């Protein structure tokens, strides 16, 4: 069964206002569970908007969107948040860590509204810190981490809820090629564990990675090409 199903999805910002902008038109896309997908396209092509819709951050303006069997179009915001909390880990392009909180606090932020006590939160974060080699940085304020550490922390935070789907917006945009390789290998490892991954990137290094199953090319808010990836 497909984890993500988009049919005829469109999105325009500021609908009904004078400065209406159409970002996506009639997107049809299905992502199966366990797949690793790369969405590529020039900046401004609508990649981020597409990811935001899949991650239940933005409501689509029209069309049918289903995540894990739940219809996510035309849904009040608190339901979208509920599904996002449950099914999606999101990695921001700019990492979006809160500078004044420690790394550990940043990573466990999604667990706070679930009511988990600090000890349990730490237990959940422990394996992730270890896996992403962040153990020694756990009590550092996020503002003092290096770029690679920030990126790993952002991925760890997205995984803390153990979501089936990981959505990453330009996960390698701020990294050099060596770090890019490391991060991609990490993501490929997640795929092997059964996670579904959707990445966006305009970096050929990403789309060419052997773990990528399919490469979707987006231009001017439309899917222009779907090709098999390196995997």
């Amino acid at each position: 069964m497909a984890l993500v199903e988009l049919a005829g999805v469109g999105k325009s910002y500021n609908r009904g206002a004078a400065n209406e902008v159409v970002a996506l038109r009639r997107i049809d896309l299905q992502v199966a569970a366990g797949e690793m997908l790369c969405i590529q396209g020039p900046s401004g092509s609508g990649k981020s908007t597409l990811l935001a819709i899949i991650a239940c951050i933005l409501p689509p303006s029209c069309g049918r969107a289903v995540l894990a069997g739940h219809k996510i179009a035309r849904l009040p915001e608190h339901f979208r948040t509920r599904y996002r909390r449950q099914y999606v880990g999101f990695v921001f392009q700019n990492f979006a860590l809160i500078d004044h909180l420690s790394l550990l606090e940043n990573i466990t932020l999604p667990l706070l509204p679930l009511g988990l006590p600090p000890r349990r939160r730490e237990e959940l974060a422990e394996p992730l810190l270890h896996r992403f080699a962040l153990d020694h940085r756990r009590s550092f304020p996020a503002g003092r981490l290096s770029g690679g550490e920030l990126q790993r922390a952002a991925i760890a935070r997205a995984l803390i809820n153990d979501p089936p789907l990981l959505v990453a917006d330009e996960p390698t945009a701020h990294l050099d090629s060596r770090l890019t390789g490391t991060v991609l290998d990490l993501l490929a490892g997640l795929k092997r564990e059964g996670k579904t991954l959707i990445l966006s990137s305009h970096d050929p290094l990403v789309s060419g990675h052997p773990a990528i199953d399919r490469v979707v090319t987006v231009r001017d808010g439309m899917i222009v090409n779907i090709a098999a990836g390196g995997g």
Partner: protein
Amino acid sequence: MQPMHPIHSFGRIQNILDYALSGLRRKLLKNGTVFAVFALVVFLFASFQLTNRALGELAGRILAAAPDITVQQLQAGRQVGIASDSRQVLQAIFGVRRVDERIWGYYFEPTSGANYTVVGLAASAIPASTSKENSWPGPEAAAIAGGDGSSGRVLLSPGVRRHMGLGERQFFSLYRPDLSLVTFEAVADFPPESDLVTADTILMSLADARDLFAIPAGEVTDLLVTVGNPREIDTIAGKIRELLPGVRVVTRNQILKSYEVVFGWRSGLGNLLLLTALVTFTILAWDKATGLSAEDLREMAILKVLGWQTADLILLRLFESVLVAGGAFAGGYLLAWCHLLYADGLLFRPIFLGWSVLRPTFPLVPSLAGTDLLAVLAISVFPYLCATAVPAWRAAVVPADSVL
């Protein structure tokens, strides 16, 4: 549609509270300022209210011993002397235990601007000295008036003695209306405990007071009626009014009620003045709360993307407001309490004492009244929460995609 991690509602509240607390600590300067100003406003409110209440209760408890009925003559709407003969009329009323004559008036001291209250009572009106503790008069009071005639001996309040500069001397003189001098001998002082009612009082015999004020014989200022059965006071007051038209009849109950109104009115006026301080503060708080920094908004948006609901964020903001307001309320009230308990209401005492030259000294004890607490809470914390509701909501509904 079971969430993967079930939500523990108590843990959720505790976590959000934790987050709010660390947020408050991080912006210590800003929140500390709001807290301090708020606590100050609550402190002023509560001090005023506690002082007023302490004084009001004190008055109520002391004046519970006020005369059952006071009878005064009115003429042209103003109080004039009442004929001593009326005493017989009153005495004849069934249920009246005794009737005492009294002369009292002011002695204005032009050089210092002080106003002494002179009370003249017949010796028979002052009860015999009792041996009971916590009671007055002691043995010295018996010496005031050796008989019903003029004795020239008086009782002073310690304040009057100090003000006259008597020191250890016993003799002093006052002027009659015709500027001739009368000499008195101050034999004793009022106990300091009764300063609240006697701070400016000189007690002398009825004949001495009549002489000092040159009041014609057969006239006194008022008649004090003691009634046997307290339940009969109103009935007897009605009878007096019928028997002596043109007199004013004041019962103790009315005295107490009047003081209740006076204190309530004064407290209200004070509250109204302090309300402006509160309004100013609320505007300040509103201003602080609405001016969300870009960094704050980004933080909210990140939290939202990470799965925080609008309700979670509203709760977070609510906690911040409640912690500041609740803490300031508790701190301010405690401070006000200590202000009254240990400093005797230093700040507001002058307001309540008025512009007297002769100031009574008496300790104030705050009293814990749930209704007072609720009133201060309603007037300080709730307006603050109302004022921060809209900013809290505005922060909570920041669109999640704004961080992208």
